[in-house]
C-alpha cells in the first residue's frame, strides 16, 4: 500500500489519495493519468492490468486500486 501511495502521490501531488473516493467518477484522474498509472503499476507490482480490469470500480480510490493489485498478484 505504501508503494502504491507513493506512485499516486507522484502522479498527482495535489490530490489527497487517503480520502478521495471518486477518482474516476469524480473526474479527478484523466486519461493521461490513467495511462501512466497503469504503466507504473504493471511495472512496479509485476502485474498485467488488462482491458477487462478497466472499470471505474477498480480505480475510484486508492483502496480499490490496492485490492485490484492484490487480486491480480494472487492470480499470477
Amino acid at each position: 500500500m505504501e508503494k502504491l501511495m507513493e506512485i499516486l502521490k507522484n502522479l498527482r501531488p495535489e490530490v489527497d489519495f487517503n480520502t478521495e473516493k471518486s477518482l474516476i467518477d469524480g473526474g479527478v484522474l484523466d486519461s493521461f493519468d490513467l495511462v501512466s498509472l497503469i504503466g507504473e503499476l504493471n511495472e512496479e507490482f509485476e502485474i498485467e492490468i488488462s482491458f477487462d480490469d478497466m472499470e471505474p470500480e477498480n480505480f475510484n480510490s486508492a483502496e480499490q486500486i490496492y485490492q485490484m493489485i492484490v487480486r491480480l498478484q494472487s492470480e499470477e
Partner: protein
Amino acid sequence: MVCNVLEYLERAEKLYPDKPAFGDESGQLTYRQLAQAARRMGSRLAEQGAYREPVAVLIDKDVNTLTAFMGIVYSGCFYVPVDKTLPIERIRTILSVVSSGYLIVKKEDEQLGREFEKETKLLFLEEMFQKSVHQPENLPLLTRIRERHLDTNPLYMIFTSGSTGVPKGVLISHRSVIDMAEQFTKTFQFSSEEVFANQAPFDFDVSVKDIYLTLRNGASMYIVPKSMFVMPKKLAGFFNEKKITTIIWAASALGVAASFRILEKEAPRYLKKIMFSGEVLPMKVLHYWQKHVRDSIYVNLYGPTEITCNCTYYIVDREFSQDQVLPIGKAFPNTEILLFNEENRLAEPGEQGEICVRGSSLALGYYKNKEETEKAFCQNPLHEDYLDMIYRTGDMGYINDRGELVFAARKDHQIKHMGHRIELLEVEASVNAVEEVEKCCCMYDDILGKILLFYQAEKEMEKEIISQLHNKLPKYMCPNVFYRLDKIPENNHGKIDRQRLKQKYMENNK
C-alpha cells in the same frame, strides 16, 4: 463565395433538414433543430444589443454548447469557449482579457457563473434558445446583422498559454475557418457521408475542424464523452455503433487508445480517415493503429492555433521504423510555408529555419495585445513592396531529401505536454509569485513526459507551491517533479543558466 460560416449551416439545413448534425450522450440535433435554436438564441442576444463583441461560454462536451456558438454567430458576435473546470482565478484572468459584456452558462453552472457577475453579464443558455410563442426567431433583426457582415469579422477566440504569465486570446475570422474547411474538404475528399467522432474539447482548436467540416459538408458529428477516454473500454464499440468514418484527434488521444489496447476486442469497421495533430505521434502508436485499422489513410497534421488549425499535412505513404519521425509534409493549398534562418533569409534544403506561414488562415492576432501580436505577426521579411503578413510559429523545421517538411525543435520555452501547449515561462511566473520562492526554473523531460521545477528557497515548499498553483493554473500546467536548490546556477550575466541546470539534471538521472 461563402462569407459566413452560417451559410454552411443554412445550406445543410435546406439539403438535409432531418439529418443529425451533432450528437452527444443525451441525444442529437438535426440540422433544422440546430439552425432554429441558434436563430432563436441569436435573436435574444442581438435584442440585448450585443454586436461584434466577444461572448464567453462556459463549455461542456455537448450539443447545447455548439448551439450556443452558432447562436452567438447569428447575433454578429464571436464566441469565446471557456473550460469550466479551470481554477476560478484562471477563468477570471481570461474574462478580464476578454472584458466581455456577456458570459453564457447553463442553469446547472449558475453558482460558478455568479462568481463572475461583477465582471460580466450572466445569461442562461436554456433561456436563450427556448422555443416559445413569446420568443420566436427575430428574422428582420438577424437579416440586418447579416447584411452588414464581412468575412474578415472574428468568429471565435481561443486562449493559449502566454510567456508573460497572461494567457493570450487568439482571434480567428470567418474567412480563415472557411479557408480551412474548403482546403480540408478538397484535400481529403469529405462528403455528406462523413461521420466524425469529436474528441477534442471545444476550447481546443482541434475541435474547430470537426465542427466546421461537419457543417460544410452536411455531415454528422458525434461527441465522444470525456469518460470514454478515461475508461476507454466502450470506445471501440462507439466507433461501430455510430459508424464513424473520420477521426481528427489529438495525437495523445490516439496514444490513449493504443495504451489501453482498445482495438483488439473490436476493430473500427467504418473508419477510413485517421488524422492527428498537436504532438509528434509516437511510431509505436501509429503501428498499433495501422495493424488494427488497415483500410484507413493516416494523416499527420501540423499547425498552431494562430493559423487556424493546420498549415501542413503528411499522408503516411511508406513504412517507418521505430526510431524514425513522421514528417509534417507540405503546405495545404492556399497556404505557403517559408523557413527563415537566423539571418532572416530563406533556409537552404536541409538547413533549419523557423517555420513561417502565409495565407488567409492567419489569425487576426492576439486580442487586446498589440505587443505580442506584433512579435508574431509581421511583414514578410523578403520584401517591403506591399502588405504581406506572415506568422512566425517559433517552431524550427527543415526540408528533408524527399522534399518534405520536418519539425525539428522549438525556438523558445514552449512545450507540448499531455496535448497542451504550454509556455514554461508562464509556469515560472506563477511559481515566482509564491512568497519565499526566491527564484525558479522550469524544464521539460520529454522522455518521462514530466514538467520539472527547480526552485531556490530556504526550505522545502512543495506543498505551498502546489496549492497556490492549483488555484491559478490549469492542472496540466502544474509541475510534476519538484527540486529545491540552495542556489540556482547563473551565468555571467546573472541569468539562470538553463544549460547547466539541464546538464546537472541529466547527470543525476542517468
